[in-house]
């Protein structure tokens, strides 16, 4: 006779063991390790909430302190490998297998541990891909999550940085898993219920508030003339050209420069209301001038950003906010929005090869993917037309019945030809290829595949890869904007001029842009202080970004 409730019984046993340490659902932080030892079983799949921004750091420390005799062989399934503790558990044997998405700050250590065999890697995913697998074959047995506050029933306020939490809880709770939340404080009544209490089994009052890093703040004072020139070309040659209204921006200085040029340069070009009105985007401080000037109609966010909370509260027409007034972010839904409802992804990368594959991997770091590949890919499940999508589709595809045509997502790489320390952006062979063979990955960690990229913008010009008709067109289009890198100097000059005549390569002068006009005085804000002024004092930048 089959037992259809085996998982349910196992959960009940875990809850029973945990309740011995709890008063109701509440467990003191000093008992957190004991709680985890009580509810975890060897080999469990565990999601230790490590998001792009918010970290369940108190529970991470508690997991590290568990006795490896009792808790071992865990299979970690979480989007972010961000804290040192996320890897410490692999050194003690508490954890053994890993499926993840992003490891920015820990990228070098991940590479060393993969190479040393301390981590058995499933795969490095994109965000949506990992979230999807939570519901198919990577469903957590235990989720360790983070919120701002909870009441004694377990009702959870995740605050502006809701991020991954609803997705993790959905997958864990509804499939017989146990959910433990760390909160900064226990309150009588939460400001709003982001996660209903019946989905939260235990609440740990953390010793310190959870850690959030300001990842999306770009100081306008550091923007260069080259970045401004590239931004001008992107606005005139792509945003205006395709009439891109719905989009996602990367987190680099290039897209931040675009945000700061919308109310100045964009205004001069008469583009207000015609471009950049609806975003899937974190609340970038550099977007404030464009919002205040009435450019931006709506922004849905993956997470929040340190210092932006008061500003967002006062701009509910633009942002998604709850009844309490604070931002509601949601990474899975915003990633989906970026994939299906945006006509363009525009962002930076570290390396581009001659076909147009790009990667942020260097030989010694596995930084993972995060969400860029979700947004920086052409979704074949899309069916609704828009002018930008259709125009890109027509450029890519010149034969066949128009009624059977697919549009194309614009996927734009915005790069300077040389990066820090004169490292060239354009290369014959991606470092990702070396890394993959060194640590035995079946797939090279490519951030955006060549067949998804539609445009590459550098200070030398725009290469429109949609218009390329063969491999030679494509290679020379890339070489033709690669500046003075070896790739760029290796161009076929006659072919590049032919591509220019065909509009595949467009130089600043072809766009009516004088490079000497690329001046910092064009920026709507030239300092963090200017952003505070634009926000009417509502933006409260972290101390490390202040110079007043």
């Amino acid at each position, binding site marked *: 006779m089959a037992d259809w409730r085996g998982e349910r019984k196992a959960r009940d046993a875990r809850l029973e063991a945990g309740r011995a340490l709890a008063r109701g659902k509440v467990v003191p932080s000093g008992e957190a390790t004991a709680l985890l030892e009580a509810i975890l079983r060897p080999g469990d799949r565990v999601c230790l909430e490590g998001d792009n921004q918010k970290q369940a750091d108190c529970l991470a420390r508690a997991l590290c302190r568990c006795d490896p005799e009792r808790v071992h062989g865990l299979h970690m399934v979480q989007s972010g490998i961000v804290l040192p503790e996320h890897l410490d558990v692999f050194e003690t044997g508490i954890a053994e297998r890993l499926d993840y998405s992003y490891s920015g700050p820990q990228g070098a250590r991940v590479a060393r541990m993969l190479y040393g065999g301390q981590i058995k890697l499933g795969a490095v995913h994109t965000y949506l891909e990992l979230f999807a697998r939570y519901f198919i074959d990577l469903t957590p047995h235990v989720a360790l999550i983070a919120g701002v506050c909870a009441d004694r029933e377990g009702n959870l306020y995740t605050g502006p940085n809701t991020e991954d939490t609803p997705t993790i809880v959905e997958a864990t709770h509804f499939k017989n898993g146990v959910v433990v939340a760390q909160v900064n404080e226990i309150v009588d009544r939460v400001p709003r219920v982001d996660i209903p209490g019946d989905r939260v089994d235990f609440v740990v009052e953390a010793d310190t508030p959870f850690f959030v890093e300001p990842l999306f703040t770009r100081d306008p004072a550091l923007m260069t003339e080259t970045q401004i020139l590239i931004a001008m070309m992107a606005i005139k040659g792509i945003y205006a050209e395709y009439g891109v209204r719905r989009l996602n921006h990367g987190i680099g200085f290039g897209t931040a420069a675009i945000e700061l040029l919308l109310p100045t*340069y964009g205004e*001069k*070009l008469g583009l207000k209301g015609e471009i950049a009105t609806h975003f899937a985007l974190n609340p970038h401080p550099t977007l404030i001038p464009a919002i205040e000037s009435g450019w931006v109609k709506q922004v849905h966010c993956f997470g929040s950003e340190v210092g932006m909370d008061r500003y967002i509260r006062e701009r509910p027409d633009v942002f998604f906010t709850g009844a309490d007034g604070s931002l509601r972010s949601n990474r899975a839904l915003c990633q989906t929005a970026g994939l299906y409802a945006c006509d363009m992804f525009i962002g930076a990368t570290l390396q581009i090869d001659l076909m147009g594959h790009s990667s942020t991997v260097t030989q010694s770091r596995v930084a993972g993917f995060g969400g860029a590949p979700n947004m920086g890919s052409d979704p074949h499940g899309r069916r609704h037309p828009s002018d930008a999508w259709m125009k890109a589709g027509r450029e890519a595809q010149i034969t066949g019945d128009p009624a059977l045509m697919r549009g194309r997502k614009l996927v734009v790489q915005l790069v300077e030809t040389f990066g820090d320390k004169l490292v060239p952006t354009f290369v014959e062979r991606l470092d990702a290829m070396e890394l993959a063979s060194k640590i035995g990955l079946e797939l090279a960690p490519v951030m955006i595949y060549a067949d998804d990229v539609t445009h590459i913008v550098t200070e030398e010009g725009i290469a429109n890869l949609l218009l390329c008709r063969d491999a030679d067109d494509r290679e020379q289009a890339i070489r033709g904007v690669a500046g003075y890198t070896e790739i760029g100097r290796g161009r076929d000059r006659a072919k590049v001029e032919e591509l220019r005549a065909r509009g595949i390569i467009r130089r600043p002068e072809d766009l009516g842009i004088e490079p000497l006009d690329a*001046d910092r005085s064009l920026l709507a804000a030239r300092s963090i202080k200017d952003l505070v002024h634009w926000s009417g004092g509502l933006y409260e930048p972290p*101390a490390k970004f202040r110079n007043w």
Partner: protein
Amino acid sequence: MAGPSAGPDRDRLSWYEASARQRLDALLDPGSFTEALGPEERRMSPHLPLFDLPRAFDDGIVVGTGTLDGRPVYVAAQEGRFMGGAFGEVHGGKLVGLLRAAVEGRPAAVLLLLDTGGVRLQEANAGETAIAEAMRAITEVRAAGVPVVGLIGGRAGCFGGGGLIAGTCSRLAVSEGGRISVSGPEVIETNKGAEEFDSKDRALVWRTMGGKHRRLIGGADAFCDDTIASFRAAALSLIADAPAFDLDTLMAEQARLRERIERFGECRDGTEIWARLGVNDPDAVPSLDTRAFDETVARIGEAAHDAR
């Protein structure tokens, strides 16, 4: 389309962002500046090549003469982005030479556009000597009846020997971005530890060395917006209002400084000092705009004095 850039616009040009040459061009009457020992003379540091470091044609300081509202002035402007505006042998020599020439030339004022981290490590002896010589020369210029006005609002701030030089000027104008101190944040942290002073806490740095703090305690005599026009207006009014350089002024300065250390020596933070000065809401000071800040300054009175 942006048209071709239309020359220096002193109302819009940020002092903080401008180069030393841009500041001078926009500060002085148009076309009035004549440079001495210009870049074409290539008076560069003889020391930097020994350290495999790049040199600058003007060694990071622009000196010369011009007019301000029609009256003759001598000017020196440090380039805060070249080696942090630090004093080397040639750099210091150009400043000292200008000051000595001012004793002879008797302009209406000498303007020092200070933007410096102090002395250049690679030529420290020459730099230290230059600082001492410049301080002495400033007193001689002032004794000759010529006011010396310091203008401070650049990236490098005004630190080390630059802070000492600022202390010898007749009058100082500072913007919010400007900082004036002898020991800089990193130096204090290195010597006293991050618990005593966390140099990465930029809000703390500005509360203890920034333009608003210096203005509130009378360390600076005018508070400017970050525009060239604002510094020009401040320079004109400070020249008009410069104190005599005599025993009374020096005694008054000594008394002011003594009283200051008695009143505020125990304070741990700028906000404590501001509270003792009678600022109603010290925590709000960093976010005050220029007009509100000037009103606060006028209310507390400490900032105005005849000393220096």
